[in-house]
């Protein structure tokens, strides 16, 4: 009796969850499907879901028009570089906040987060002028620095919430055994912190990958990442849904795949110490 009830509830839950999941995912699915249609089929009325002539011509057209591999490479370097640099700077800061907290630790953390609230467009001219001064306009290094700074507060905060969950007793034990600060960090802390660092890394790669204001406004040809690539497909003349879909798919596919493969780490990374 009770078994039947739970069984029925499980079926209902599954049905509901799958329906909602598919609904949420549908816009992405539809974009991917549309990218394989011809332009005429992309706007067909009534819409065609699967029974169309699958074609790769849109991808061909996009590849012919844009140097996709360069945009992709720039995205990888910028997102990856800024994240790694950010983590190198944030780990020591987060470590000291977590294990040597002072009265002001929380204030500093929240202040760091508040720097993220500066409206980017308000400082476009100042930053642009600085970039010209330093000769880093349209360079990957310039973008790596800017995106690192933008995401640094989030990185510090995430790592802080992680490190805080590491029991302090372990460190004390290590200290008792005569471990130096360096050894403490290297041999005790790091192994325990690796999962946290991994998920922080993932989340920030995603944030950096999708950043579309600075990456668009501080680049020209050499350092432009996929956000600039998509800006050339947003309103071409005539029918463009299929080509837009192909370009969109190409812009999001790498990060989507990365996200899916690493979703376990990512999910734990999204907790921000929210779990107690």
């Amino acid at each position, binding site marked *: 009796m009770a078994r039947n009830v739970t069984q029925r509830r499980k079926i209902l839950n599954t049905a509901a969850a799958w329906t909602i999941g598919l609904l949420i995912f549908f816009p992405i699915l539809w974009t991917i499907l549309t990218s394989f249609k011809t332009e005429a089929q992309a706007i067909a009325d009534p819409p065609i879901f699967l029974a169309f002539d699958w074609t790769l011509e849109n991808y061909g057209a996009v590849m012919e028009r844009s140097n996709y591999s360069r945009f992709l490479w720039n995205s990888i370097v910028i997102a990856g570089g800024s994240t790694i640099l950010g983590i190198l700077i944030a780990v020591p800061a987060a470590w000291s906040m977590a294990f040597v907290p002072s009265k002001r630790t929380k204030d500093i953390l929240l202040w760091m987060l508040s720097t993220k609230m500066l409206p980017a467009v308000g400082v476009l001219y100042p930053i642009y002028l600085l970039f010209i001064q330093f000769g880093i306009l349209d360079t990957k290094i310039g973008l790596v620095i800017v995106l690192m700074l933008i995401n640094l507060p989030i990185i510090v905060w995430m790592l802080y919430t992680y490190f805080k969950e590491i029991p302090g007793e372990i460190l004390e034990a290590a200290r008792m055994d005569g471990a130096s600060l360096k050894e403490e960090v290297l041999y005790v802390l790091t192994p325990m912190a690796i999962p946290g660092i991994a998920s922080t890394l993932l989340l920030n790669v995603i944030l950096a990958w*999708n950043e579309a204001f600075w990456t668009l406004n501080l680049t020209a040809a050499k350092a432009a990442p996929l956000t600039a690539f998509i800006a050339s497909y947003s309103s071409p003349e005539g029918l463009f849904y299929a080509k837009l879909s192909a370009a969109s798919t190409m812009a999001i596919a790498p990060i989507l795949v990365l996200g899916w493969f690493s979703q376990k780490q990512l999910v734990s990374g999204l907790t921000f110490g929210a779990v107690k």
Partner: protein
Amino acid sequence: MATQHSRSAARIMMAPAVILLLGWMLVPLTMTLYFSFKRYLPLRGGDLGWVGFENYIRFISSSSFWPSVMTTLTIVGGVLAITVVLGVFLALLLNQPMWGRGFVRILVIAPFFVMPTVSALVWKNMFMDPNYGLLAHLWEFFGATPVEWLSQASLTSIVMIVSWQWLPFATLILLTAIQSLDSEQLEAAEMDGAPATKRFAYITLPHLGRAITVVILIQTIFLLSIFAEIFVTTGGAFGTKTLTYLIFQRVLESQNVGLGSAGGVYAIILANIVAIFLMRIVGKNLDT
């Protein structure tokens, strides 16, 4: 001894991050403040001298200012409400026993990976277009007149698009929080005959308080500065001009850097008001 030692070490370790962020905040802020007291028009030869508070007065007395503040708060508030409510619901659902939870989670998390420009383009063209959009076809299928989303329900549309992007984030944090809930406590309450609504209100929801705070804090930071979603869909028309967008118009479309900088200062003030407000609740909730 050890604490003394580690305290100074801690300071040194914090230094790079703090100094960098201080620089990242102070240098542009100083320059923004500097420009905001200038008549600075790039198309008219650049720096045309000091003007005192004129830019500040002009920016705030413009008929677009208060509506833009209201729009900003509406979008932030609307998205927060939708993502938190739906997020709690989805998290509760995903926490139930079911088949293929991992796969559903993959589906739900996906919108978070889509860059804002792409999601705005896809929603605008392939869903909300009144002639070719999928929603129009759906409405027609049920015999209704298609909604002209972006012109007649503009703010709703933008809240919808942005909520879609942030729902995964809210859901996942809340789900992790729910999973840590002590199930024995819930079972005990059930045995005592507490109805589901009461169990939710008195046990689950309080437990989620902290997670909800985090969701609100992080999302607010990102939502205050949303730009691509508006730029791509309505270009600031139909009452969707946020404060960020208004500053964009002043700086880039009108090429009035002084005026835009004054707007930037106002935006910083608004952000700080929101931040203080948030930190009050967050600070309380994050204490451990």
